């Protein structure tokens, strides 16, 4: 059906009678005196006899001018064609930005096509219709909120980028539901590549999916053997047909091996890679064959083998502690006595049992058991008999006591310790603190106010758990053990004690400087897939020591690699919103009129200039 956005534009048609009037009143002529009109008169007679339709010329000009005015009137009245008379006043547009939208089975990509379609939809909006635009990226992002301004919407739309992550469609739909609840007459369009079944008439999914073929590196894992690392990779085939693929293994970026493997349709094949050099820091597995989503054709494993952590235990033989600490395989425990314990350095962790040296080392973390009151570090008071042992409050340090039944501990005596300003009381009795932890600068310190021998704790199986919890915190591997992340996940880097600078180099080579003030540094920019390198400059009395480690960011293959639409059932029964109204598609026509107008004006000029 045809309608007009700007019916006032028809006022312009008043120029039509004006032009006719002008023609009736004759054209405005330039007055020229000539010696005689004799020759001119003859000329006109000649022209008129040689061009019998010459008289029509003025009429032709008039006709063209009237046509031009008519076209201009139509153009400024902004006519549009539309389908279906009724229309919603509000739209919520959701754009799926998950990694699978990068697939190229829909040209140019699913994402770009969807963005294009949204743009067309925006172009077709009525002036009183408003759109809320939400990008389902790493997290739902309301890009534009209830606006009808097409330029704003298109500008914001252009800024939406596809992610390498799994998207956040569930959270987005919850958000959509919340927004839709406030709107009277709303229609929700989800531009995605999966078949969402909403079960509500005003929810509509626009699916961009051509059943693309895809292969993915599902998993890369490794284990250390005497012959060097052995890599396990799992190659998945989401194409629906058996495929023979070329897979390459790179060690530190250098090709180590290439294999031809057969992957059954909709199945996986495990590939083992041996003969990897032993000091390889990372391996990459590449599928060399092209498919519709190249993003997941690579996978990584960090084989960065850490040196053992050197731990110094200063005690008068504490077998419980020795055993508890050496449970961890990567720890090299060095034991010494009080007499030889001064001026030590070069350890990752110092455990002082019943002793505090005159000057504390500054290059490692510290655990102190049973401090005496002859030190410069802690203010130690009288002994007390702890009763009613409990967590002082839930802090991030409470994780030391995860899986530890501390309420069953029995401690014969402990010493009063006034809590230093860096300290947090983790475990306490009615009479005073039992475990104080905290960070002094980037140095992590834990103080137990009692001797383990004066308690039944070492006899319980909670003790090794407590110690392992503590060592996990005390002996950071730069990163946690989880060096495999998915794009968009928050990566936490544990800063090393005494760290001065932390740099993260992204797979594309960008170097980010991270604030090392806190012991756990989150990185939010790990959205690119690939290997990230983390460098930490640790300053100690021996100078600056730079340690490097790596982490890898992957595509969440389990949710993204299968490019086929599938059926995603969404429970929309609780979704509440207004009435269902059919979609309206609108097409503005003024551009066409404008082009014809231009042609008519050119023709008119030509006729005027050349006479025919």
């Amino acid at each position, binding site marked *: 059906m045809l309608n007009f956005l700007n019916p006032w534009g028809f006022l312009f048609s008043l120029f039509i009678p004006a032009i006719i009037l002008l023609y009736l009143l004759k054209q405005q002529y330039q007055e020229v005196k000539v*010696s005689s009109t004799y*020759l001119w008169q*003859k000329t006109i007679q000649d022209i008129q006899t040689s061009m019998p339709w010459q008289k029509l010329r003025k009429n032709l000009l008039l006709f063209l001018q009237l046509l031009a005015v008519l076209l201009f009137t139509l153009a400024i009245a902004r006519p549009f064609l539309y389908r279906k008379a009724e229309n919603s006043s509000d739209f919520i547009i959701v754009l799926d930005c998950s990694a699978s939208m990068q697939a190229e089975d829909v040209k140019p990509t699913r994402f770009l096509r969807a963005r294009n379609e949204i743009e067309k939809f925006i172009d077709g909006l009525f002036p009183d219709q408003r759109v809320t635009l939400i990008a389902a990226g790493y997290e739902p992002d309301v890009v534009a909120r209830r606006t009808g301004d097409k330029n704003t919407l298109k500008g914001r739309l252009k800024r939406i980028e596809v992610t390498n992550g799994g998207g956040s469609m569930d959270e987005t739909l919850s958000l959509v539901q919340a927004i839709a609840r406030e709107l009277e007459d709303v229609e929700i369009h989800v531009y995605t590549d999966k078949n969402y079944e909403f079960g509500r008439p005003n929810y509509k999914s626009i699916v961009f999916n051509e059943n693309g073929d895809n292969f993915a590196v599902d998993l890369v894992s490794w284990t250390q053997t005497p012959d060097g690392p052995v890599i396990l990779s799992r190659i998945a085939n989401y194409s629906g047909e058996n495929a023979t693929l070329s897979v390459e293994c790179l060690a530190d970026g250098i090709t180590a091996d290439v294999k031809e493997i057969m992957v059954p349709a909709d199945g996986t094949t495990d590939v083992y890679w041996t003969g990897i050099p032993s000091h390889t820091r990372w391996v990459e597995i590449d599928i060399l064959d092209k498919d519709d989503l190249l993003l997941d054709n690579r996978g990584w494993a960090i084989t960065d083998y850490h040196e053992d952590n050197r731990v110094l235990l200063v005690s008068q033989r504490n077998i419980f502690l020795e055993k508890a600490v050496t449970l961890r395989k990567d720890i090299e425990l060095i034991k010494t006595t009080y007499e030889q314990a001064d001026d030590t350095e070069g350890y990752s962790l110092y455990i002082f049992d019943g002793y505090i040296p005159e000057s504390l080392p500054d290059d490692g973390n510290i655990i102190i058991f049973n401090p005496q009151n002859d030190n410069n570090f802690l203010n130690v008071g009288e002994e007390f008999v702890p009763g009613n042992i409990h967590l002082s409050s839930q802090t991030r340090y409470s994780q030391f006591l995860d899986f530890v039944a501390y309420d069953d501990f029995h401690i014969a005596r402990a010493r009063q310790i006034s809590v230093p300003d860096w300290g947090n009381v983790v475990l306490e009795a009615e009479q005073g603190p039992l475990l104080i932890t905290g960070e002094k600068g980037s140095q992590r310190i834990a103080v137990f106010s009692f001797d383990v021998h004066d308690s039944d704790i070492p006899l319980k199986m909670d003790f090794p758990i407590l110690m392992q919890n503590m060592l996990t915190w005390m002996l950071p591997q730069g990163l946690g053990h989880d060096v495999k992340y998915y794009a968009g996940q928050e990566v936490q880097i544990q800063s090393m004690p005494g760290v001065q600078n932390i740099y993260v180099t992204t797979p594309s080579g960008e170097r980010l400087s991270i604030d090392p003030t806190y012991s756990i540094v989150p990185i939010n920019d790990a959205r690119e897939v690939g290997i990230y390198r983390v460098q930490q400059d640790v300053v100690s009395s021996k100078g600056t020591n730079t340690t490097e480690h790596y982490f890898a960011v992957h595509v969440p293959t389990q949710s993204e690699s299968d490019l086929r639409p599938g059926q995603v059932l969404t429970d929309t029964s609780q979704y509440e919103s207004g009435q269902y109204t059919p979609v309206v598609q609108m097409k503005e026509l003024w551009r066409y009129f404008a082009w014809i107008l231009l042609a008519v004006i050119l023709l008119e000029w030509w006729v005027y200039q050349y006479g025919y």
Partner: protein
Amino acid sequence: MNGSEGPLLDQEFLKKLDGLILNTRTALQGDIGGNRKSRSKGNSIEFSDFREYVTGDDFRRIDWNAYARFERLFVKLFMEEREANVTVFIDLSGSMDWGEPNKGKLAKQLAAVFVYIALANLDRVSVAGIQERPGAYLPYFSGKQGFWKALKFIEDLEFGGKTSLNEAIKSYTHLKQGGGISIVITDLLSKDGYEEGLKYLQYLKQEITLLHIMAPQELEPEVSGSLRLTDVEDQEIRDITVTPQVLKAYKRTVDEFLNSLRDFCYTRGINYVLTSSAASIEQVIFTNLTRLGFVR
């Protein structure tokens, strides 16, 4: 503007004219074809023809030898060296006072030049203005001393009104009987044509020289757009949209007009000279007219 700024002709220029005479193709025509064979009148008598004696003829010219042979009286006819009657017609219509340079000025200059040459040849000369009707008129006179009076007369001529060449010539009553020389200076922009008038002059045994003056703007107009053309003579208005096409057609019309004019003059033995008003009087006299042999 009536083309009268400054002296029409200066002394310098008049001196140059002294050697010139009007050349006429018809030396003797019929029995009255007096012409100026020689500048010294009566000194040489050239025999021309015989005719039978009629009463009243000068019996001194009877050829007695012929009488002896045929016994009839014959009179010898000689080329009479008579002064010619030169009439300079000048178009005084409004259209002549137009153009850049002005056609009227050139017309007056030419009229004065012809008067001067005629007087220098001891001819009798008259100047007649033509408009819708015969206009100002300077009767025949001769003798160089009359030139200044004639020049004053020419200078004082005023342009204006319509042209009707045919009508004006036909109703002109001062032409001397017995033929003569008519010089017609005009732009020929006469809506009733020119043929009748010229034929009439020929009927009166006038040898015609037609000096056709056109302004450059008439030959090649530089106008465009929607124009309201006003005829300076009759104020007739004609609206026209001038496009390159129309200009081409106009030039075609001018060419046709001039060609038909030339044809007419050629077939009727009329001396025809077209000159642009942009041409100087020297150019017209010493180049155009001399080359064509109208003066020598």
